[in-house]
């Protein structure tokens, strides 16, 4: 059952990712990216990263995706033909993608994967909460300053002069 669900989610993720790359319309690419990010969230669930999956949905699907679509729609000639996603430099792009693929495969092969009895794993949210309150308190508070810097920077850059 879980294998079937995994195959379906992986297929949706890959198919929509291919659509993002190969669609000539920028708007369709943006909407297809929605499915890709959603599928990645599903894959996180299969890696027992439930909080990460929720984060993916909330931040990427709910926030970044809207921002990307806004970014596309902020451009002037959205419906005109000169706003096309062109796949230029196919050779260099393919080469860099292949190198990245080799790198990720090397990491995947050499990593000591945790293989236990995962079906008894509990939800990770409570453990994360204890960790950010005790063990990683300083990084947690520093993350707040990072967010503050991001907020002020984003507001400053996007303000109309």
């Amino acid at each position: 059952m879980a294998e079937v669900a995994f195959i379906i989610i992986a297929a949706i993720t890959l198919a929509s990712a291919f659509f993002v790359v190969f669609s000539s319309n920028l708007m369709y690419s943006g909407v297809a990216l929605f499915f890709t990010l959603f599928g990645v969230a599903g894959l996180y669930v299969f890696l027992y990263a439930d909080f990460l999956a929720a984060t993916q949905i909330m931040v990427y699907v709910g926030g970044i995706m809207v921002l990307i679509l806004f970014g596309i729609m902020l451009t002037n000639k959205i419906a005109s033909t000169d706003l096309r996603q062109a796949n230029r430099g196919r050779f260099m792009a393919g080469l860099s993608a292949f190198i990245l693929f080799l790198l990720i495969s090397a990491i995947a092969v050499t990593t000591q994967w945790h293989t236990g009895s995962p079906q008894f794993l509990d939800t990770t949210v409570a453990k994360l909460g204890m960790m950010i309150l005790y063990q990683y308190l300083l990084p947690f508070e520093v993350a707040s300053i990072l967010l503050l810097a991001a907020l002020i920077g984003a507001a400053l850059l996007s303000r109309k002069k």
Partner: protein
Amino acid sequence: MYTDFAPILIFIFFALLLIGALFVLQNIISPKQNKGGDKLNTYECGEVPEGSAWVKFNIRFYVVALIFIIFDVEILFMFPWAVVFQKVGLLALVEMLIFLLILIVGYAYVWVKDDLSWVKMTVRYGRGRYAPLQKKGSDS
């Protein structure tokens, strides 16, 4: 943990099934002829649609979306905190308050800098040649 996500899968499955069933049903019961012309037009509450839906957005939406994402991430940090809040008690409250206070500085910043106000006041009413406008607007 898989079982925690099973309801979501079931929900997605039934959502797709019900929408698909509605399409099949309307295909069965709707007349096969008389499809064309205005019936294939975009439905906009009876109005004749004008232009493309892909219009240029106002930049203000973008600014608000950017601010939203920052606080979206902030809320995410509160989820694990809320789960263990009862166990930790006052210490958790203080730690989260510090976290929030730092971010509230940013909130105050965008508020003071007028990024949140939707209607930008570019004309100061009540001064110079706009003084009569103020008198007409406010009766008190």
